[in-house]
């Protein structure tokens, strides 16, 4: 099926549907994933099609239903656990970090862990500090986990299906503001490797490395920079563990300038790892010190203006890009 304007949630929904149909061992569980159809409609229609044992509404018990997924994966089911938002995943970190990520290793490689944990993260619209978290760094630091961060419907389709077919614990980090974004979806197109980065705009003056919702902002910034005579290459990492360093380094050999754009807060965030590793591996190709555009060191305020000011914006990306290219911010930017 080819669709020029598929919604991100629909792509996830189609991926779940395809895998539930293909393999009886796939199950979906989480709060309101069944009868209700999922908080963001991702599981819509699946309960009616596959029944309550394969699409299971759970009590509000994140720690134990994620752990239930771990136990089920130990005996060959392929559970897809939905945690309603990443904020609640803090209650499930024992299951994700201490159990899912470690059991294959601690058992000396005896047990597969075909577990997928899906959750939306990021800053949405005035949900306040407890519902506006970006915890990718917390999970990135866990050996044994894989983390996919699809930013488009096509990647959502590809990466969720790859995650379900993988035998390792994989976190699929979605974004609340992406669920109703549109993009092309070609279900028959051959998928790239799950963790390979994508060059989504070619350029020669600087490399913008980004992921998730910041891909869209970075592309808009790159379009604006082009109008100002700066050619930015934009790389969507698509994955935060592992990270495709080769694609980044190849780009830096061409542009010699690095700008990382991330929604999470700057200190010890995902961008810190990107900058550190690229500095180690490509220091002498860089003409300028690398820069990060990142979230402020604040919990996210409820107030809409403060919320917007706490995370990167198109103008803030443009400004940083111009500075790294040795140009002052243009008058109209603020």
């Amino acid at each position: 099926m080819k669709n020029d304007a598929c919604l991100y949630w629909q792509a996830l929904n189609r991926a779940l549907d395809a895998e539930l149909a293909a393999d009886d061992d796939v199950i979906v569980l989480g709060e309101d994933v069944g009868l209700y159809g999922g908080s963001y409609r991702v599981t819509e229609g699946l309960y009616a099609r596959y029944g309550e044992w394969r699409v299971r509404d759970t009590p509000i018990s994140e720690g134990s239903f994620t752990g239930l997924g771990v136990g089920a994966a130990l005996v060959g089911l392929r559970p897809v656990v939905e945690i309603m938002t990443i904020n609640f995943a803090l209650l499930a970190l024992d299951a994700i970090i201490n159990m899912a990520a470690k059991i294959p290793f601690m058992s000396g490689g005896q047990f597969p862990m075909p577990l997928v944990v899906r959750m939306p993260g990021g800053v949405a619209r005035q949900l306040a500090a407890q519902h506006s978290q970006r915890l990718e760094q917390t999970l990135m630091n866990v050996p044994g986990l894989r983390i996919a961060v699809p930013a488009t419907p096509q990647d959502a389709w590809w990466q969720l299906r790859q995650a379900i077919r993988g035998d390792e614990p994989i976190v699929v980090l979605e974004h609340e503001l992406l669920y109703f974004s549109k993009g092309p979806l070609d279900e028959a197109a051959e998928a790239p490797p799950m963790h390979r980065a994508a060059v989504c705009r070619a350029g020669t003056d600087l490399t913008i490395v980004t992921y998730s919702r910041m891909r869209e902002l970075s592309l808009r910034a790159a379009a604006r920079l082009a109008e100002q005579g700066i050619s930015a290459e934009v790389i969507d990492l698509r994955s935060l563990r592992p990270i495709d360093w080769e694609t980044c380094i190849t780009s830096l050999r061409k542009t010699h300038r690095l700008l990382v754009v991330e929604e999470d807060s700057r200190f010890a965030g995902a961008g810190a790892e990107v900058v550190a590793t690229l500095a180690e591996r490509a220091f002498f190709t860089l003409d300028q010190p690398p820069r990060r555009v990142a979230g402020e060191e604040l919990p996210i305020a409820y107030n809409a203006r403060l919320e917007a000011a706490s995370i990167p914006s198109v103008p803030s990306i443009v400004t940083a890009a111009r500075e790294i290219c040795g140009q002052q911010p243009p008058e109209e930017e603020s």
Partner: protein
Amino acid sequence: MTELLKKMLRDMLLARAFEERAAEEYAKGNIGGFLHLYPGEEAVGVGVLHAAEPADYVVSTYREHVHALVRGVPPGAVMAELFGRKNGCSGGMGGSMHLFDRERRFMGGYAIVGETFPVAIGIAYAIALRELPEAVICFFGDGAVNQGTFHESLNMAALWRLPVLFVCENNHYQIGTEIHRHSALPEVYKRACAYRIPARRIDGMDVLAVYHAAHEALAQVRAGNGPQLLEFETYRFRGHSMADSGNYRPRVEVQAYERNEDPLDVAIAEAAMDYPAVAQLTGDHIGRFTEQLGEDGHLNAEALETMKAEVAAEVEAAVAFAENSPEPAMEDARAALDCNRHGEVLL
């Protein structure tokens, strides 16, 4: 019954000898880290696991050496794991607290208190989905019942009628805090009624009582009647781990349990009770055994000594196996982590 009792007694003797040797090897520096030993609690693990079928799954805690042994994991593979060696049952990656044996459905020792509940209900969910006549045995201590996972998991197990037997090894202490100081309701089994799970409290020092209770409960669980909970009252003779002297417990209390409640003595006495004699009326278990079994010819003092010698040799062989097992290499660690990639191209 005598054959079963003899087998259980032998496992209890092996358990005691294995753990005492582990303590010695720890003192010698051959075993590192945390080492939680089982003496005093043998009747629980042995009784429950003799009631289990090979198709049942076992999920255990960090005090799980004996559970693994009774489940059939070779003593050498367990001892080699304690030594951190490559031929250990977890390849030297897990250690004392993380014994795994896929073939025997020994689904691991978990070292975060309360983790066994969600793992067990997850396995049970798969069994229920596949409509198989299997059960999951979920071990936990009295300290674990105040974790959220206990309540969350019991709720889901009951809600979906999952085939789990929850087995509480109540040794009355969560490390150093006695149960009346950590639980508003010190009778663990009473908590199960909040989730409409049938539950009983059993003398966990009496291996036959443990066996019968577990056998009955497992039959219910396998028949699809939902989860059951059994609370076994027991006592650990040693500290929480080798790092713990256990000096928060009155010496007289520990000695009283050792003298009067040793589950090995109880088991020996029970073996004797199959052949009633006047001596049965005396209070001294060992005395009762020696006087009586000498006459009946089934389990006499000589047979007991033979059994003890056999398990001693088995433990000796386990230590030799561990000593001769190589250390795992970094490649082995990486292979254990990447065990499931099947050549998948990631980048």
